[in-house]
């Protein structure tokens, strides 16, 4: 490549750069871009917080299910539920009600235990009901 060709190439590049410098953002474009970024950030955060709330509700529901399962297991094994104080220590935000009724028809020899665990998480009510047929303690 000759010296003349180098000169021409450099001049061309210089011209290109000069032209590019003229293409800046307008203020209105900057303002719009900033507002778009801000809106997206706000939306993303809202979604994250909502998802977090949903997860907390799911976790609370799992805990309520664990509590109901524990009560049914205790009823099955010993005929009596967990002591009230122990239940409150393990699941302080939940209350439990137990209903035991005699089975009917093909389950006449059994008792139907129904455990309802209810509580409030994030101002929303959670209620889980589980039932199980158990053999009467006297019959064992």
């Amino acid at each position, binding site marked *: 490549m000759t010296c003349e060709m180098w000169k021409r190439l450099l001049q061309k590049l210089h011209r290109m750069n000069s032209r590019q*410098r*003229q293409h*800046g953002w307008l*203020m209105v474009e*900057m*303002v719009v871009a*900033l507002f778009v*970024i*801000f809106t997206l*950030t*706000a939306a*993303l*955060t809202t979604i*994250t*917080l909502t998802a*977090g709330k949903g*997860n907390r509700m799911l*976790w609370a529901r*799992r*805990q309520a299910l*664990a*509590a109901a399962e*524990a009560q*049914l*297991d*205790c009823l*099955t*094994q*010993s*005929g*009596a539920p*967990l*002591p009230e104080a*122990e239940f409150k220590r*393990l*699941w302080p935000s939940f209350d439990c009600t137990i209903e035991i009724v005699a089975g009917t028809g093909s*389950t006449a020899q*059994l008792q139907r235990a129904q455990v309802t665990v209810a509580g409030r998480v994030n101002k929303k009510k959670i209620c889980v*009901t*589980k*039932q*199980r*047929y*158990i*053999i009467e303690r006297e019959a*064992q």
Partner: protein
Amino acid sequence: MKPRRPNAFLLNEMILIIALLSVLMMLSGEPVRIFFGSVLRSQLVFSQQDRVETLLSQLRTHTEQAAAVYVQPADERLGGDLLYLTGPDGTVCYQFSAGRAVCSRGDNVQQWDMPQVRFDWRLMTLPDQSQILAITTFQQHRRRGDLPAFRGSYVFVVNLANNHSRRILEYD
């Protein structure tokens, strides 16, 4: 003749943009911090909770199959009390300490490392002499201090697997 537009920002435009940027950064700083903090914390919570679930699932099986259970007090320095469960496949020993749970059966040792998890467990005897194992897990992560620890409680009934009335019919 149409006046030529200047190539760069004017001073008042720059001042306006800087003022706008600072206001927006002030408003969006907290949400951005919450977002990235939540994402990182969630990953940590879920990975450790996964290990906790695996451990508890195995502990439930061992407890429900156990014919005999006893606790051997141990120094906290050595990792806390030892829980022995004797089932059809022999005796299994569990030890829970802050950030770690160990299950050993003879030379076979399983270990779960969960740095942010703490266990609180107790073996209780019900009035009819049935035994239950109540275990609470706490996952604590650094945060502004306005949220309690990620807490979960479970109860496993000893020897439940041999109870004939267990889950004859169950539905939600």
